[in-house]
């Protein structure tokens, strides 16, 4: 039997109005994402992958089509419901970490655990990303890789149903990038969080259960890896 469907998207379209020009970011996407799945979204700039991720994460709303999150229709949520949805169910990791500079590593994580319903402790989340040591350092005192691991700890500490990563290694060197991917992989494996990574980097596709190629706002192809490659064995 298939694992439970977490997201079900049907006929998803998104049109941006840039002045007098209409940009069709998504042109009718149908997609199911399953519980515990590790998905990599690949595609060139402007293919619509970030738009898709933003809609799934409740940061944006589609122009047409609908998204079901479990039994509920995400696309009908109003702003307050979307805020609550992000607060309870979604973990985000961004290319530029987006840590709060005035809070230490532990406090950045605590920021989320303070408002989530069933979080792990901040220390536990930081141990999960191998950052048990530099808990009381401010972002400005951490390296890029360390900052990104804090961001991951912050994203997973609430035990989200889904972890959405937008170019998580984009700003990092190879060795640090791999370390970060290991952490994401471990969270997916150990906590069973549905994980979606969008990237330009084709190499990362090797560690996914499923790889989805986007182009011009449409799903071009989909493939399932027979086995997931450990991040340590990736290189680019």
């Amino acid at each position, binding site marked *: 039997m298939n694992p439970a469907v977490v997201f079900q998207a049907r006929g998803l379209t998104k049109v941006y109005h840039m002045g007098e020009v209409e940009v069709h970011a998504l042109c009718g996407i149908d997609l199911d994402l399953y519980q515990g799945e590790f998905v990599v979204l690949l595609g060139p700039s402007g293919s619509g992958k*970030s738009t898709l991720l*933003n809609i799934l*994460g409740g*940061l*944006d709303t589609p122009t047409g089509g609908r998204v079901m999150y479990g039994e509920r229709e995400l696309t009908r949520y109003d702003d*307050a419901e979307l*805020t*609550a*949805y*992000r*607060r*309870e169910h*979604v973990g*985000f990791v*961004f*290319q*530029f970490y*987006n*840590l*709060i*500079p*005035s*809070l230490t590593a532990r*406090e950045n994580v*605590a*920021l*989320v655990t*303070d*408002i*989530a319903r069933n979080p792990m402790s901040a220390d536990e989340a930081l141990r999960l990303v191998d950052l048990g040591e530099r808990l009381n350092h*401010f*972002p*400005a005192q951490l390296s890029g890789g360390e900052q990104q691991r804090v961001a991951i700890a*912050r994203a997973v500490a609430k035990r989200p149903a889904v972890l959405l990563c*937008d170019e998580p290694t984009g*700003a990092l060197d190879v060795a640090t990038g791999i370390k970060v991917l290991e952490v994401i992989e471990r969270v997916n494996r150990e906590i069973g969080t549905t994980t979606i990574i969008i990237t330009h980097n084709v190499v990362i596709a090797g560690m996914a259960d499923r790889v989805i190629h986007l182009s011009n706002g449409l799903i071009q192809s989909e493939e399932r890896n027979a086995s997931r490659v450990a991040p340590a064995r990736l290189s680019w």
Partner: protein
Amino acid sequence: MRALDRKLWRDLWLMKGQAVAIGLVILCGVATYIMFIAILDSLRATRADYYSHNRFADVFVSLKRAPEGLRRQIEAIPGVTRVETRVVAGVNIDVEGFAEPVTGLIVAVPDEGYQPLNTLYMRSGRYVEPYRADEVIVSEAFAEAHGFTPGDRLAAVINGRRQSLTIVGTALSPEYIHQLRPGGIFPDYKRYGVMWMGRKALGNALDMDGAFNDIVLELAVGASEHDVIDRLDRLLDRYGGLGAYGREDQRSHRFLDEEFGQLDMMSKMFPVIFLGVAAFLLNVVITRLVGLQREQIAIMKAFGYGNATVTWHYLKLVLVVVLFGVAGGIASGAWLAHLMGTIYMEFFRFPYLTFTLNAHVLSEATLASMGAGALGTLLAVRRAAALKPAEAMQPAPPARYRESWPERLGLRRWLSPSNRMILRHIGRRPFKSAVTVCGIAVACGITMTGHFQKDTVGYMLDVQYGMSQREDISLVFTEPTSYRARYELAALPGVRRVEVQRSVPVELRNGHLSYRTAIRGMQPGGDLQRLLDAELRPIELPSSGVILTDYLAEMLGVRPGDRLTVEVLEGGRPVREAIVAGVVKEYLGVSAYMELGALNRFMREGPAISGAWLAVSDGDELARLYRALKDMPRVAGVALRRQEIRNFNKTMNESLLFYTFVAMIFSVIIAFGVVYNSARIALTERSRELASLRVLGFTRGEISYILLGELGLLTVIALPLGLYTGRLLCWMIAHNLQNDLYRIPLILQPNTYAFAVTVVIAAAVVSGLVVRRRLDQLDLIGVLKTKE
């Protein structure tokens, strides 16, 4: 337009809210400066013009009585160019249909019509016809108060004789620009009037035919006023001269001078504050703008723009904002000066107001504002212009934070992450935070100055009329009278209590220091007039020695126990010594006091009195009492305490309201300018952080708390500082307004503090709401895509 200039206008458009907020602060600075200077210049110019056109005298003296023949000798004093001898007397006026006692001054004018000095400025009707004993010209203010027009009639008791008079004209005089009943504090045009009558007729009425009791002189340019006064005093010694004085001691002139001094001080104090705040704001905003434009500056420099060009570019941006403020400030300052002008015309009876706005004032205001703006900006711009292009093109290093001091003190676990963010953010930019706090504090302080006048004058009245002068009616006799008058007064209808006094004009001297005033002899154990010590407790009059107003003791450099020379200015003009027995607290005027018996002994005269204080019961008897007082020929002046208080409320409220309103508007602008700019800068600096929080699931309310909580906290810190600043500003005002006419105590009522706090909080809340609206439009996605 060059591309760089186009960038300037676009940048300005992007920061229009902040530009307007700063421009408004500059506007306030320029407006206050222009307002105070313009009204001051206008009043000065008007007074000078009026004085010269109407030949306002240079030296004044009153005396008992001298024969007209003395005039020759006065004219012969070197330096004297014109002399007018005249008769002047106090009168009781009876206005039909107006029950309360009205007193006034009647001044003789030449029958021939040519007035050598203090020429009347006729406002309506005509000049008196020669030798007519039933014609008077009345002061315009008095006529307006009673609705008199030429042809109307009134009665006056002159020298004990009741005379029916016809008003033939209304006029103004340079001598009575500020018209006050002797001993009065505020003009009361209904109960005190100045009238002019032909010299011959008035002379007859006062038994002064061929004699005079008042002289006004004009001096040659460069003549020594001091020498003339000296000679005049010696000449008039045997005619009961009361001591000559120059313009600076002439009552109306003196009041105007004091008012001008106050305006002058305000014109120095307030613009400096406003321009200081504006310079700080410009510095903060431009520092931020330049910070955001590091990369653009680098690119401009990479393309070959020089440091000077880049610096000039940003300076131009600042100057546009400054010039906007200056233009608005000049316009609103001129408008406010006009408004003030109309208020002043109520107090000061000028025939016209020559509105003066000197070009040098405009250029001073412009240069000062540009200077303040440029100074505030130069540092920020220089720092940006000095960056190497390669360096500037790199993103600015990440913000460094550290734990705030409350956390280091161990309060950490009590603070939520949001509160920690607020504290650490304040701590990271202590200078900027301090500027915000100072700005808000100044706004708070300025609001208080608006209310201070009301508080302090209210307090002075409380002390004067609630604790010290508690009589209902005070009256003065035409000349010292026997003690028996007391019983006559007590028998009048409605009189509950009578206390008597004697007033003796004197010159008090200590070495080279001297002051002309009156010693008042007061009944021991008096309840209607009491002397108060520094703690405002009533004091007992000692059986000998003289008591001085504390300020008078200071002026004369004497302390209790010291000796003082007393030259009596009436009768045989004896010169005696007196011991200073103590000092008393008084805010209005300065005076000397003795126990009545002691004063009579000091004068070596029997029991005589020159005035009385009455406590009366309300009701029907009051009208009969007024009637009876009007018919008593020896009663020269009557003042009603209740009326004095009402006068204050009526005449002062209007002008105080204006000050309060202007001060409030300006402080709101400062508070708004400071808080709004801080909020906008914080928003630009932290939009990325706040958007990240929104993505993490924080609500709009929660991120608003983080951003606005900081401003809230700074406002809360600023408030006590602001109340202190307000006290300091009020102290500066009060301290600069100490003179023998009045001393202003530093009194601030709780209401004033509460009002200032309310105004500042309201301004902060409004700026918070404006910024909050922008928070709702945060671009959650875009902000995550870019590195700052």
